[in-house]
């Protein structure tokens, strides 16, 4: 007699956390008119369709540096650094710590980082502090 075991795959704790965070973010986004939600609306308005789709699904989006053509990933829901240079497989290579001066909301910071890397990568990299990555968590 052959026993068949059905293996049910549960989402990882990290995936559940990400899903919950995104759900919370979107409830807030549609329900409120806070500075945070205005910042997120502005960000979404200025993202390309592909970036918006990626951000809505995953909570981050990728940009291409205008000078080097390197790829960077900008995250919403992590502690600094929230910008990483990524390799061709999507693995993080280097963390980059830079942001616009002053007290800005997350969406604004992410939009400024996107525009800086896409239009003036050298200046953005000159301002950034680099954080080495020892492993690829994603």
């Amino acid at each position, binding site marked *: 007699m052959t026993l068949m075991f059905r293996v049910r795959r549960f989402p990882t704790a990290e995936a559940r956390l990400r899903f919950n965070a995104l759900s919370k973010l979107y409830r807030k986004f549609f329900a409120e008119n*806070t*500075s*945070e*939600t*205005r*910042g997120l609306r*502005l960000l979404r308005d*200025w*993202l*390309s*369709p*592909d*970036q*918006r789709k990626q951000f809505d699904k995953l909570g981050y989006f990728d940009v291409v540096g205008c000078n080097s053509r390197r790829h960077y990933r900008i995250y919403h829901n992590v502690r*600094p*650094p929230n910008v990483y240079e990524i390799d061709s497989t999507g693995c993080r290579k280097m963390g980059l*710590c*830079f*942001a*616009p*001066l*002053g*007290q*800005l*909301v997350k*969406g*604004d910071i992410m*939009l*400024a980082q*996107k*525009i*800086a890397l*896409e*239009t*003036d990568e050298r*200046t*953005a990299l000159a*301002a*950034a*502090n680099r954080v080495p990555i020892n492993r690829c968590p994603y």
Partner: protein
Amino acid sequence: MATQIVMDHTGDTRHCFNPDDPQALARAEERFKQLTGLGFTAAVRTAPGEVAKVQSFDPTAEETLFFPRLVGG
């Protein structure tokens, strides 16, 4: 109507103006010079998701976005 969007702690502040009104246009140009003089970067959308940095006031831009200068974290 054209809009100048300035990032700040409230999310953003929007200054709308009629580009056909010479006085409103002059005020918008003055605001542009003031903000860029303070180190703000000005950017306009050239296509959906495509952005260009601008160094001088563009009276034809529908939206101009300003963000403060970048610093290392």
